[in-house]
């Protein structure tokens, strides 16, 4: 099965940010995303759980450049003042061309 190596970006953030983040992902070039409800703790742990619902875990499969843009955006826009974590890894995607 031939696949395409792409970037899987994972962002865990406060629920109030979901709509905003997914909208920005689109603008930054993501073709889609998958959201799962989550709860968790971190350095500002209390924050995340302050707003009921505690957390959303957003995953998006994108090209390396788009991934970089997304991480940069999250770092600038949200890291300073919201409960967020974001990381990226490489995945081999079926019909990967669809997502770039």
């Amino acid at each position, binding site marked *: 099965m031939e696949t395409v190596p792409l970037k899987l970006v994972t962002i865990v953030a406060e629920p109030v940010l979901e709509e*905003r983040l997914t909208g920005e992902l689109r603008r930054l070039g993501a073709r889609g995303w998958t959201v799962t409800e989550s709860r968790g703790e971190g350095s500002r742990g209390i924050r995340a759980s302050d707003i009921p*619902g505690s957390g959303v875990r957003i995953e998006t499969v994108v090209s390396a450049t788009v991934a970089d843009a997304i991480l940069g955006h999250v770092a600038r*826009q949200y890291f300073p*003042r*919201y409960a967020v974590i974001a990381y990226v890894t490489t995945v081999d995607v079926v019909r990967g061309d669809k997502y770039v």
Partner: protein
Amino acid sequence: MNEILKANLLSPIALAFALGIVTKLIRSEFSLPKDIYTGLSVYLLFALGIKGGVELGHAQFASVIWPVGATLLLGCITPLTAYGTLRYLGRFSVADAAGIAAHYGSVSAVTYIAATTFVKGMGAEPEGFMPTLLTLLESPGIHIALALGAIKTASADRDIKHVLHEVLTARTMVLLVGGLLIGFLMGEKNWGSIEGFFDSKGPIFKGVLTVFLLEMGIVAGSRLGDLKKVGPFLLAFGMLMPLVHGALGAWLGTLAGLSVGGATVLGTMAASASYIAAPPAVRVTLPDANPTYYLTSSLAITFPFNILVGIPVYFQVAQWLHA
């Protein structure tokens, strides 16, 4: 006074609320599932709206207009008094002051319901159009406080329009305003067919309210730990500000021609702090405001204070004003 206080403290909803707090104090992991909590609140708000709509049909314009004015006035004053107190007496940052003010400028529907149930129990039936006033008091305070914060800080990194739209179309508004319309339109005969389910004086409504307050107690109880973090000023603020706003509301309500019951409920509205509509709005508009401050003060201080002590006090005040 003591009589009234006792009567209130021994009411099912006050006891259920206390049980909820105790549940947290004994570190129990029990709590109502989030969806059940939502479902119950939908029922309570919808029932409130429909009943209000039915009774609105009986009210004549003249009797409503002044109370409406008083309510809107409260919606403009309370966020400012709260902001001023926090910013200049409490030395809170602009963001924190505005964030907390947004909560006290708005209203807690559950506290409103508790007040209504209380005065009815005291035989002081409030005006039928009170739910209408509740809907009017919901959003102005939030808008004013957020605007204040947004102007005074560069940090409002989101177009405020969007946030206001969210507040205006939130669950509470849809169910209250929508319920009012439905109740108003369907007429007596239809109301008769569902009164047994929605009537806010009936056992179902009161029973659901009791279960709901149990959960509210758990939610409030889970924040008690943060009381240390908020400091003595906010602690005092959470109990004194409601007294001020409550008295002001009861007074304006009386001037506007409301009965003792109505004035008590309006006072309670003014004294209550929102913890459903306000938090997310503040979180996205004023990210620099510390959620621990506004959530703890509105949920763990002011809400319990009003449920257990405030409401009877505002009732007492309203009686004096009418004497």
